[in-house]
């Protein structure tokens, strides 16, 4: 019965992120992706992506507060296994934390367990989001927003104290259909 579709959804599956790069759907609900994965994706792409992530030991962790420290991330994520490497996401210009990081484990199983048991729980009193990642590469630690942080923090309309208050570019921009994904640091 191996390989059969489970009767309940698995939480250790990669999100639709990789595919959504090519087929970006317009989203009107800007927080839709945080902590709640969007499952609309195409079968064939899903297979490609899973091939890629079958041995992944790295997680992308999103929705951190700018003030969350490496030590806090270690403390929480070590509950799923020893951490091999931790790379904090930084503002491209100020080199200060901008709300995401990469956690690399020694084993794929630890990364999966982290998806299942830690993704969607709180760190520093914020619900964090985890996603399997094919592995950190130099350069991906930097935010890709116009002003240096993550894109989602450019256009955020709500006031988020942990992430620098209002979006930095909110002033003129309110067009609907913009993609608010916190996709900085992620593969393109």
């Amino acid at each position, binding site marked *: 019965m191996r390989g059969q579709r489970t009767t309940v*959804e698995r939480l250790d599956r990669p999100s639709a992120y990789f595919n959504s790069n090519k087929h970006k759907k317009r989203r009107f609900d800007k927080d839709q992706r945080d902590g709640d994965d969007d499952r609309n994706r195409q079968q064939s792409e899903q297979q490609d992506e899973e091939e890629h992530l079958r041995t992944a030991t790295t997680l992308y962790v999103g929705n951190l507060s700018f003030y969350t420290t490496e*030590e806090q991330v*270690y403390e929480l994520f070590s*509950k*799923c296994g*020893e951490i091999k490497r931790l790379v904090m996401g930084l503002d491209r210009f100020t080199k200060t934390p901008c709300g995401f990081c990469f956690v690399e484990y020694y084993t794929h199983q630890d990364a999966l367990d982290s998806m*299942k048991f830690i993704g969607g*729980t*709180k760190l520093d009193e914020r619900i964090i989001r985890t996603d399997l990642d094919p592995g950190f590469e130099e350069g991906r630690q930097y935010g890709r927003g116009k002003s240096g942080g993550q894109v989602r923090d450019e256009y955020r309309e709500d006031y988020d104290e942990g992430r620098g208050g209002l979006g930095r570019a909110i002033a003129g921009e309110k067009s609907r259909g913009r993609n608010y994904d916190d996709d900085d640091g992620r593969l393109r």
Partner: protein
Amino acid sequence: MADLDRRGGGGGGYNSKKRRYRDDNDDYGPRGGSRRRFDAPPHVRVRKQLIAIAENPMRPWHEECQAIANLFTDNWDDELLRSNFVDLVLQLSVEQPLKTPFLAAVVLIANADKPEVVDMLLAKLAGLVEKNIGEGEWRDVKLYLKLAACLQGCLSGDGVFPVLEELFNRAVDLQTASSEDTIGTEIVKIILLTIPYVMATGSPDEWTQKAADLMEKTEIIAAEPHALQALIEPYHPESGDENQQQTQSLMSMLQTQLQAEANSGWTLSCLPRPWEFPLKDVEQQSKVSNAPKHALPTIKIPQTVVAGSKPLFPEVYISVYSQQDVESVPPVTSVASSLIRDALLDSINILHFNRNVTARQLIDLDCYFAPRTFAPRATPFDRLREIEPPKSTWKPEDVAVDAVFSQLFLLPNPEQKLVYYHSVLTEACKLAPAAIAPSLGRAIRYLYRNAPRMDLELSYRFMDWFSHHLSNFGFTWKWTEWVDDLELNDIHPRKAFIIGAINKEIRLSFAKRIRDTLPEPYQVLIAPEKELDVPSFKFANDDAPFAGEGREIAALLKRKAPDEEIDTVIQRIQSQAIDREIDALVASTDVFVTSVLYVGSKSLSHVLAAIERTKDRLSDFGAASDAARTQIIEAVMAYWSIHPGVAICIIEKLLNYSILTPLTVINWALTVKAGKTLGHALALQEVYELVFNTVVKVTGRVRQVVVKVNSPDGMSDDETLALETKNMRALFVAIQDALTGWATGSKDEIIEASTGDGKSLTEKQVQRWGQRWLRVFKRRSAIEEAFLVEAGKEKERRAALAVETSEGQAQSGDVEVPDAPVDETANGNGAAAAATEGVAA
């Protein structure tokens, strides 16, 4: 007071698409079911409805089961539906086992119209039981047998009894062969847990004698306590503790409960009987009972059975709601305690891949057992007293929480990582805060009260869960109720718990935040320095010895100066140290390590980078002498004393670099640090964590090598294994030697400082800490030895099997795959061996 709108929550894990047509014909039932948004094909609808079976408390079981059965039999010609149905029933019974009786009811009803479906199902079911017995996947064996037992009503002959009897014979063989056998015990457990489901199928009288015969036989095995049981007891009471309540082995408890149940005519009042129709449907009922009977295909059980992927240990029953004046969970005298617990634990451990669904099923647990088994949901504990018998006072939330805690406090280890059980409790608390939170509160109070008599490992699991749980709920706890315990000395287990828990909270958050959550009397427990991000550098103060040299090295490290420049300063420290008649290696190690830590103080990445750059020199220091190596740890722990989590992390990395050895860590913690503090360090959470993590690292390494040695691709490296095993044993010996001194009060430090008779309060407390530590690591050691023995057996078995297979094949000449492959890899080897022999011939 059932939570009526909970379908809207949709089990958390279901996506919105699913939810849309999941309820297609029951949401609008009263109005004729005519408002379906679209007609999904029958196989899709049957799938949705089967998966969601019994989730809706408002829908009578017999109606729901009948509706699904009808939908299925009405579309019998749909070939896809036919095969999917059987597979899905089988899959659900091992994936969502709480639903098994309801699935069985659907099958029993369908049997009246299309008896063929039962034959299809039984054929596959028998094959799966056989396959899982062969692989030693005992839980799946149990769950498939549970389905078979629920189908007993449509089985001919003695139904599942012959299988149970055959299984029992194997158990006897195993138990006779070895008193340390755990597979036989597991088999007997499965038999005992299957019998009640047979007895609940309608006509218990028919099977009473069969059950009695079987139980008479199982008694001998069930009553026998297992050799390892003493080590896995959750409590470790002090000698002289009045509360010497012995936890009962699950097996003997189950045997007694079933005996009692048999004596009272197998009422089994907690089990659901969805195949029973209300009186007005007598016609339907007789249709189902008169439906054709089917023979359960023979299930072959191999002569030798194996342990499978999950290590087996004896089990004990634990409840955090014992000792209450009102029974909020089933008492250990009732078979309901075992049956409900067993069903919940299977669901919890199987559904690890979606904790939201696990939590949902726990909250909904009253949907899966007989009506009136529990008190209404969310009844406050105080109101249970007002419930008049014979109504139940069992609080569903308590039963659910109790089941999760039983895993959190399972020795040696639960099936999943501990953090999984944390996450289940977090989700349950999020789904039904008003119902779950008070139950957790009472559990916390029970555990806190019993902290002194708990096994130390479990005590720390409690602390770890407690701090992690609070971090998900704004760090709110009624600390005021423990205020009186602040008067206790710091090594009292309860005070140590408070201190440790607060420190753990700070590690997940930050000192100022945690300070704000604590009442005034607790404020002293958070030292003001804890609010500093970066510790102070002791060489910034000129009074410190070697202050100038320390600052100089830090400056050199910062500008990444060449090694020679640092060498000069180190030599200067060493010659000064010799003049002052102190250990030159220790002094220079301390200055250098402290400077590296200072340079890397900004974050863990910084310090790890600093260590990476200086690792050669650190290795040299570490290799210079035992004292110097110990000084490395001393310097790390001293520099990061305000944030011990960082220190532990750094030491872990130093172990990875082999700059430190595991023995150094043990020596520092249990001899140096414990010695300096007259044993009080044994009460510090960070010291335990350091030692425990180190041991886990070493034992994990041995296990890794074992897996490699046993792997089929010939990566055998017995030498590495022998070396790693030797190191591990040496480590355990060192730990036990050091701890025995503390446990018996014979450490030099204690004897020197003793006020005389060794009977002072703190001396006794320290001894008790020593004993508790000792028990943890004796167990760890025993578990690893047991693992090595099992691994050795497994290796022999594989080798024997490979030879057997190749011989058999060489003789017969054709490659025949056995019906029930006992072990794929071994068969692979055998086939390869046969192939080469064939070439030779």
